């Protein structure tokens, strides 16, 4: 049974410290701003002695003890009048407070663009993330120093893409656009033995954005790994990747054919979605 809630039980639950503790460290401006949070004495609303509390439980008469307290009390008075004495963007911060909510690039784990983040990890070999990041920086650097791409109208980029001469100055967009443009929409999923005669039933499945990008970039990496490299040294691999990215945007890359092939297969097999055997398995 819960204890009865009345005034006396509430008073018993209170622990009052009537004496001032030993002097702590001087409250800093932040502490003052918090409204005397480090004042060690508890404060109760003033009440008259008619409540018949025992004298030991009566709070001591509170006097401002220091200039900080005085300042804080003045601020409280200002608050009472409806003014705001504390502007946290000004008070105690050299460069002000950041605006909330924090933009995603301020977060350690999301500081890079989503596409860049994903693709850097796809570039990574043997767990060497820092090397992959350096490679990615070199790829972006190559993209912004190479001449603007000559777009191929038969291999259109995503709708809403900026004109070609805008791309080199925004290499992140350039890379993302290339990858999103060749990304396939579907993949084929094989259901074993459902097509009759031991053959698997190929059913097109839609891909999520991350999956699409992954597939597209793995195709690009396939092409890159088959290409001979021109230079030597640490820029060798990133420059090959970047050349392939430019080839994709210019419509010269064989990745486009691969995408087309997958889409053809997808449209050819879309009837299999209605197959009775896979009902409930998707």
């Amino acid at each position, binding site marked *: 049974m819960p204890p009865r809630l009345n005034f006396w039980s509430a008073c018993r639950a209170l622990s009052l410290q009537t004496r001032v503790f030993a002097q702590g460290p001087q409250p800093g401006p932040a502490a003052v701003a918090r409204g005397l949070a480090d004042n060690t004495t508890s404060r109760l609303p003033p009440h008259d002695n008619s409540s018949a509390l025992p004298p030991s439980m009566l709070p001591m008469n509170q006097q401002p003890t220091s200039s900080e307290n005085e300042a804080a009390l003045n601020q409280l008075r200002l608050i009472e009048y409806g003014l705001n004495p504390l502007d946290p963007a000004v008070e105690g911060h050299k*460069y002000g407070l950041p605006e909330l909510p924090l933009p995603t*690039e301020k977060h350690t784990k999301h*500081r*890079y*663009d989503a596409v*860049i983040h994903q693709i*850097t990890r796809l570039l990574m070999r043997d767990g060497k993330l820092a090397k992959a*990041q350096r490679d*990615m*920086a*070199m790829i*972006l*650097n190559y993209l*912004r*120093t*190479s*001449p*603007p791409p000559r777009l191929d109208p*038969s*291999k*259109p980029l*995503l*709708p809403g893409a900026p004109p070609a001469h805008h791309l*080199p*100055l*925004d*290499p*992140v967009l350039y890379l993302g656009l290339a990858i999103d443009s060749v990304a396939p*929409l*579907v993949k084929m999923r094989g259901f074993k033995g459902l*097509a*009759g005669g*031991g*053959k698997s*039933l*190929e059913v097109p499945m839609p891909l999520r954005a991350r999956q699409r990008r992954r597939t597209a970039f793995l195709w690009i990496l396939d092409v890159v790994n*088959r290409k*001979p490299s*021109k*230079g*030597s*040294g640490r*820029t060798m691999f990133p420059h090959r990747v970047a050349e392939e990215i430019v080839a994709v945007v210019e419509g010269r890359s064989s990745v486009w054919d691969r995408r*087309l092939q997958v*889409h*053809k297969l*997808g*449209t*050819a*097999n*879309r*009837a*299999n979605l*209605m*197959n009775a055997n896979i009902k409930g398995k998707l």
Partner: protein
Amino acid sequence: MSAPNCLRCLLRPSAGIPVSSLPRSTPFALVRAAPFTTTTANPRPKKEAQADGKPKNHTRAGKKLKLGKFKKEKVGDRGRPPLPGERKAYRKRITLSNDNAIPVPWLTDLGSADLANPANMARVMALPVELQDQLRASEAFKPTQCWGMFRKPAVLVRKETVDLANRMQNAVDKRQTLRLVVTGDKVTGKSMMVLQAMAHAYLNNWVVIHIPEAQELTTACTEYAPIPNTDPVQYMQPVYVLKLLQAIKRANENVLARTYTVNPHPELSQSVPPNTPLLALANAAKEPDAAWPVFQALWSELTTQGANRPPILLSVDGLAHIMKISDYRSPAFDLIHSHDLALVRLFADALGGAVQLPSGGAVIAATARNNAPRTPSMELALAQREAEQARAEAQANGLDPNAVEVPQKDPFFRGYDDRVEAVLRSVQVLRVRGVDKLEARALMEYWAASGMLRATVDEKTVTEKWTLAGSGVLGEMERAALLTMRI
């Protein structure tokens, strides 16, 4: 090419869509696409099964004997293999402009007095075209520097730059030689300081002889031969010297054409009478065999006292490599000291103060931090010179000079080199540190105006990059702001 599928979606011609709305060139009837159906269970179109051209009648799908299945997959034709040196040339090529970058309107070209003018401190200034050609001919640009990002090459005029240019100017005014070693931490801009010194020299019509990589002289990668009638034996490096001569010729064409020989040079195979332009003298070397005598003749002409000679700048990058025992061997298979290589000796003598330049000039050497062998004598000597400078400065400021301790030799260490110590006994040391925030801001404004830094340049950003770069180390600032994944 006409794709049976739309490129952006999975749209395919079917009865529901009017033909006119489809972006295709093939007639509708020719497209071999089946109408939508739910009856087929065969996912593969027939054409694909017969794609390899073999009849499928007698082969069964299933297990087949496959010989050599563990063989490596054959890599396709990789085309022509690169020629010797081609890959290195690709790696070392230098691009000085980026057409994508936005031209910076307030960028002004360097004039002859600009680098020595304190008013230009913390300003970014462009290199004029002819200066670019001169610097390129003497290989002052390095592939690791970020020249290829901006519309035209530009340099930040730092406090140290103005200091160095003024020292050079003072030395020439008094017809003395400035002997100076530029040192500092990694990527603080030591090579760039040498480049700026060279730019100052070229703009003021000095003769500049620059050795871009000292390691090429001592790592035994270029030919060498003993010089006859020398005791102790000295060695010349004919191929390198020929290359150096050609670089000198291309970079200093104007000055050398205006300077004339005063002495006859009977030792040369080609007759060079007095009053010939030095350019013609430098042209006399056509093959490596003649290179060293020609270079010697050119050097003796340039240092002839009493004639009207331009000031000279000798500069080298990577000093540690020529302050050690080289990788070359003598006929007795002993290692040759770097200072026994004639070209290095010439430079070391000049740095040590043994050569009197007729119109004054400067000998500037820069240390390197990444590619540098351990040279205890050089490190000690530079630390000592630095401490002595600090002492002199303390004395000038009325402080106690003894508070600065001059490092001493370790008595139990044998690896010191007396010849190196003798060379570095009286050089000045210029330590390059990070830039201050004003300079950092000027640089970042230039980056942002070029479109390479996509951020607002305010106090916060500048402080952020400056701090990330270890108190404004320039190379680190570039890494933090330009060579990053966050653009």
